[in-house]
């Protein structure tokens, strides 16, 4: 298919960028919530919360950004996707509400702390699961009259599996974040969980890839038709390579206390970047499969694009503010760089 350089394509890429940023950033902080039940003491929970309390709001803003870019640049797709996924979206929002307020209330509570722990863990898990569920359903494709049916088409074995896979992926990102932000036993624990989660994530990626290629002839043709496979082979190869390195890094961090691994052989920040790389590769793979559809096999980005007057109006804003946002977000992370300290900090 011909790739036409157009405003629509630019906005598709921007949307992709927003989604990727959201998945990476909110991914690790939702992941902290998913991992939460596997940590037991109050001190550990305090540490987990403190590691993300200053960034969760900014991270979640990427979800709103993705939503409004879809709304402004592809109104027809925004209308179709959001109303089609009515229940998963509502449930995701409810999940995000509970985990969002838990940050503020948990640190101010005495007797109700355990309820806020529950709200944080369950809310994060529910939100991540719903996102995976929608992703799975999108890849599968939806029938045209879906919105009118009271059936639950998004409840298929495949979409449920994707829901769990996304939870595992977010939890992996969180483990890598913790390896970077904590030390001692908690870091070891995160590295150990990270290794297991990595295996689960790789297995899920393999299964999802095979499943889609098997079920969807269009996706099969995209990957294996003509010379495509040759161009696309770096994606799976690089993924395996990244996973291999990540597994080794996590193993070193995990063993470092017992085996006295020399500090310079222990990478504490690299795992996070490797895991992000893995997400990037998976995301590109997804794009290859569904391009040019926003709602697979129903609505392409060209069909859904807003009139040029709207697309052009947003351009200056994007070119000025997106780099600015990236800059001060990075600054914010820098201010809180280094390990999370366990003394009461803040207001």
């Amino acid at each position, binding site marked *: 298919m011909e790739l036409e350089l157009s405003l629509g394509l630019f906005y598709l890429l921007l949307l992709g960028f927003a989604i990727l940023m959201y998945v990476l950033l909110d991914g690790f902080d939702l992941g902290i919530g998913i991992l939460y039940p596997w940590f037991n003491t109050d001190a550990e929970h305090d540490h987990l919360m403190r590691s993300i*309390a*200053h960034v969760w*709001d*900014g991270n*979640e*803003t990427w979800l*709103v*950004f993705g*939503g*409004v*870019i879809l*709304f*402004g*640049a592809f*109104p027809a797709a*925004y*209308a179709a*996707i*959001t*109303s089609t996924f*009515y*229940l998963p*979206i*509502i449930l995701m*929002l*409810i999940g995000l*509400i509970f985990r*969002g*307020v838990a940050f*503020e*209330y948990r640190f*101010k*509570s005495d007797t109700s702390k355990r309820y806020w722990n529950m709200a944080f863990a369950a809310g994060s898990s529910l939100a991540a699961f719903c996102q995976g569920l929608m992703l799975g359903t999108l890849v599968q494709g939806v029938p045209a009259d879906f*919105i*009118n049916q*009271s059936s639950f088409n998004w409840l298929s074995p495949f979409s449920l599996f994707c829901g769990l896979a996304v939870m595992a992926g977010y939890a992996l990102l969180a483990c890598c974040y913790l390896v970077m932000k904590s030390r001692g036993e908690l870091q070891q624990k995160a590295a150990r969980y990270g290794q297991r989660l990595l295996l689960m994530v790789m297995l899920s990626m393999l299964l999802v890839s095979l499943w889609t290629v098997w079920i969807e002839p269009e996706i099969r043709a995209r990957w294996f038709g003509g010379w495509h496979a040759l161009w696309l082979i770096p994606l799976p190869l690089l993924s395996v390579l990244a996973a291999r390195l990540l597994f080794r890094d996590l193993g070193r961090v995990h063993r470092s*206390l017992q085996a006295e691994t*020399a*500090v*310079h052989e222990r990478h504490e920040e690299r795992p996070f970047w490797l895991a992000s790389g893995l997400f990037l590769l998976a995301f590109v793979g997804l794009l290859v499969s569904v391009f040019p559809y926003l709602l697979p096999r129903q609505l392409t980005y060209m069909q859904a694009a*807003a*009139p040029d*007057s*709207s697309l052009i*109006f*947003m351009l200056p*804003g*994007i070119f000025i*503010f997106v780099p600015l*946002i990236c800059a*001060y*977000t990075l*600054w*914010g992370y820098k*201010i809180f760089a*280094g*390990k999370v300290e366990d003394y009461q*900090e*803040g*207001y």
Partner: protein
Amino acid sequence: MELDVSILSRIQFAFTVSFHIIFPSITIGLATLIAIWEGLWLKTGNPQYLQLAKFWIKPFAITFGMGVVSGIVLSYEFGTNFSKFSEIAGAVLGPLMAYEVLTAFFLEAGFLGVMLFGWQRVSAKMHFFATVTVAVGTWISAFWIIAANSWMQTPQGHQIVDGKFEVVSWFDVIFNPSMPYRFTHMLLAAFITATFVVMATHAWYLRKGQHQEFGRKGLSMMLWFALVLTPLQAWVGDLHGLNVKEHQPVKLAAMEGIWAEKESNVPLLLFAVPDMKAEGNHYEVAIPGLASLILTHDWQGELQGLKSVPPEDRPHVPMVFFSFRIMVGIGVLMIGVALIGAYLRWRGTLYQSHWFLLPVSFMAPTGVIAVLAGWYVVEIGRQPWIIYGLVRTSEIVSPLPAERVLFSLTLFVLTYSLLFGVYLYFMRKLIKKGPAPIEQLEQQRIGVKASGYALSFTKALATDTDPSSTKGAN
């Protein structure tokens, strides 16, 4: 009973947006107040200002958090429940909201982390900068969302192509006729709301005999603010009303309870019960000619009434009528408080007048109630149109099964009721706990917890774990 998905979706949106607006109405003003206190502290070095900022930043944080989570819901609800609306008007409203996210949401979120948690990691001036940025972010956010809302009230700058809106002039869309008035009115409303939340709390401390110095400082400042802001708001509100008369005469007729097609020497109704079936009012208590005088500056001035349009083009009159009276009533009450406060201050008995402090300490929610009532006038008054005069609300709802919307509505009602209770509980807890003593704040400024300490501490650790050194910091 047959469930109507259109009604359910509208109730859900009304409920979720009403819940949401409570929090930004408070945080817009509170962020500004905190920035003012921090600035005054930096300028004068008076620790009382730091105490005010440090105390109010906690209620601010939980209020802001509630605003964030309830706001995300709205950015998706346009699509989930009003898919046809987002499809036909997305090209106009989507970009406005994209600008809101680009210029405001990220700004607030990016600097909020530093504002709340950065006291020990950045210098005092940098912290002040972060606070100011958060405050400015809330104003910018209000600007864009009011622009979008006002375009739905007084649309211009667009053309309709194949049933969908396309923009011809973005300047006309953003600066549509009602936008400057609504924006000013709303921003003032937010400042006043926060002013009265703070004023009530400080009056409560004085009345209870706790934190006297702190209580006086806050009450005194807030009464000054109220003395300036509340009369100003009455004036801006009047201008806004004249704007409504010009661009949305039917809404104005509902606000004033005017039925006749054309009426001159219109009385100002202090009370009445509008009856939509009988097309008239019961139990009128009126001041003759005053509505004409206010709205046309002439006792004999002529105003357009509800009967000038067919019944299906009229909003729900009693709701608009009563909401408007509640808003204006609270406004008058606030002006009264500001004036009495000024008089008592002049007499020198302000802090001892318990008969005054008592009612004031119960006025914390009045600002929020007035804001809600005002928005009901705006939104219900626009009905039956979603885009005034062009698109009817009933035509643009998502064709969802009604049970599904009933389910989500139930979920929102349960969740929000629970959270609202929790919010009030923690607000009460924070207020009962009171401010940190000034001595403690001074202590935090030196030694271990001084600004920048944590940053240099972690930097020192980072150099310890440098590859060149062989020993880890663990």
